């Protein structure tokens, strides 16, 4: 493998751009999080050190938000990953009529999240659930069901993402590996377990990682559907953050953001180690 010299010119443009656009605002945000900065009192900006962070330790609302966010993230990513993988495997079969249908599966991704969330509010399903005696269900007004509803709407929107990434991964797997395995008498499950899974691990973990980070920060759908309610049933860290912004508490809002970043970074680091291991073995 070549040494770093020439690689520099490939890497520099993207990296310089990325770090300038993202890390500078982040550093600024970290700096603001040490201040007591309330927008309505611009003259009363004071350095308060870690006070904005210390508040989280004994704030039940924040703890609750962490729990809600975790439940939503784990639930959504699990559902989306399994559905996405299942669909990718289904569509990777050499069956002719699958080709033209493939693109239909991707459509939810094209719907603007704000609209995608809104269209679920139209109560068609409830009417028919009512007609067969099962409903109407309080999808958004029951605390427990509200979180499930949000997860389902999120799943509807992002299963195509999981599908597309894993499907693209499946398509570039060398076909002759499977043919060789079939010749050697491997069952379909065996070739899935011993060829597909190991070769697809990198792509699968990447898909989980990207979706996990996005779900953790999900805002649009929750905001449109419940705004964090009923009560605090769907109040994620992001909604809490938004409320702090809305009230003009810049220091506190930025502190919440930095905490979110740290939580996501830890989550990411754990998954990254899993991703880099097979990657290192390959090169």
């Amino acid at each position: 493998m070549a040494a770093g010299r020439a690689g520099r010119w490939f890497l520099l443009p993207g990296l310089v751009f990325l770090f300038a656009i993202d890390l500078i605002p982040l550093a600024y945000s970290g700096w603001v999080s040490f201040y007591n900065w309330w927008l309505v009192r611009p003259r009363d900006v004071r350095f308060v050190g870690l006070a904005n962070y210390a508040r989280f330790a004994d704030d039940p609302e924040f703890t609750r938000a962490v729990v809600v966010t975790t439940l939503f993230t784990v639930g959504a990513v699990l559902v989306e990953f399994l559905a996405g993988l299942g669909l990718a495997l289904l569509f990777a079969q050499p069956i002719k009529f699958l080709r033209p249908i493939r693109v239909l599966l991707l459509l939810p991704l094209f719907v603007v999240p704000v609209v995608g969330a809104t269209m679920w509010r139209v109560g068609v399903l409830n009417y028919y659930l009512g007609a067969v005696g099962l409903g109407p269900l309080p999808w958004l007004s029951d605390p427990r069901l509200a979180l499930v509803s949000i997860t389902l709407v999120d799943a509807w929107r992002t299963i195509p993402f999981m599908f597309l990434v894993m499907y693209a991964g499946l398509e570039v797997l060398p076909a002759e590996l499977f043919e060789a395995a079939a010749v050697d008498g491997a069952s379909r499950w065996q070739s899935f377990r011993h060829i597909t899974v190991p070769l697809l691990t990198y792509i699968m973990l990447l898909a989980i990682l990207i979706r996990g980070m996005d779900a953790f920060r999900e805002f649009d759908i929750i905001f449109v559907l419940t705004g964090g309610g009923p009560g605090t049933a769907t109040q994620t860290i992001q909604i809490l953050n938004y409320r702090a912004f809305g009230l003009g508490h810049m220091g506190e809002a930025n502190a919440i953001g930095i905490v979110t970043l740290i939580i996501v970074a830890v989550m990411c680091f754990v998954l990254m180690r899993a991703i880099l291991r097979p990657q290192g073995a390959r090169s």
Partner: protein
Amino acid sequence: MKPTRLRATLTGVALVPVLVWTLFPIYWITTASFKTELALYAKPPQWLFTPILDNYSRVLTNIPFFQYLKNSLVIAIGTTLGSLVLGTLAGYGFARFHFRASEAVRFLVLVTRMAPRMVLVVPYYLMMQRLGLLDTYTGLLVAYVSFALPFSIWLLIGFFVDVPLDVEEAAMIDGCSRLGVLLRIVIPIAAPGLVVAAIFAFLVSWNEFLFALILSGVEAKTLPVVIAGLNTDAGPLYGEMSAAAVMVMLPNIVMTLALQRYLVKGLTLGAVKG
């Protein structure tokens, strides 16, 4: 490996709930855009109705819709091109060149994507204000390329690593430069990855709401902000909203169908390579 007729049938049966789940909300919002206010809220839901165009004419005449459409398109295409160029270069750099801090830098690339947008938006607003780029295409485009780039880089690393090294080395022995190898050998082989990266870069820009809301005032306002604006204090205008939503979906669907052919071509090319 020819699938049996039974397997094809089972697959077809399994597809029915999948397609209903995926397409019904889109079907419903599309029909809703052609309904009168009365038909929208009718119980039982109306499956058959006389379609009207009132919702569309209201959206097109009450707001400068085409200006916003142009804004959204220009910014999304710019985002796609920008993140593809930068992402391809960096992805190839990571896939083929290893230096001491290689993995740490790759991790840092992801860190930038982990940043909650809520945190980025205020300091970014201040930066753009200082540069005089508030409410411009550039202001949003730069932000969106930075959103799309980490995913592009990571995805493309995965595809570039799988490109057989000996093909590249053979080309270099024949006098091809590094950049030539990337353009003539690596990119064609990794085309499916590039298509996926392009689609996602476009969508990042097309769907983004928070930054568009805060950074764009009048000139660079994009469609999601316009649509969310139809969710007024007096309650959502479902008719106008669904009409606008359908029009926002339209260019996307056209684009995907156009790319679809290339996607298939790219996929078969990937299958041939091994």
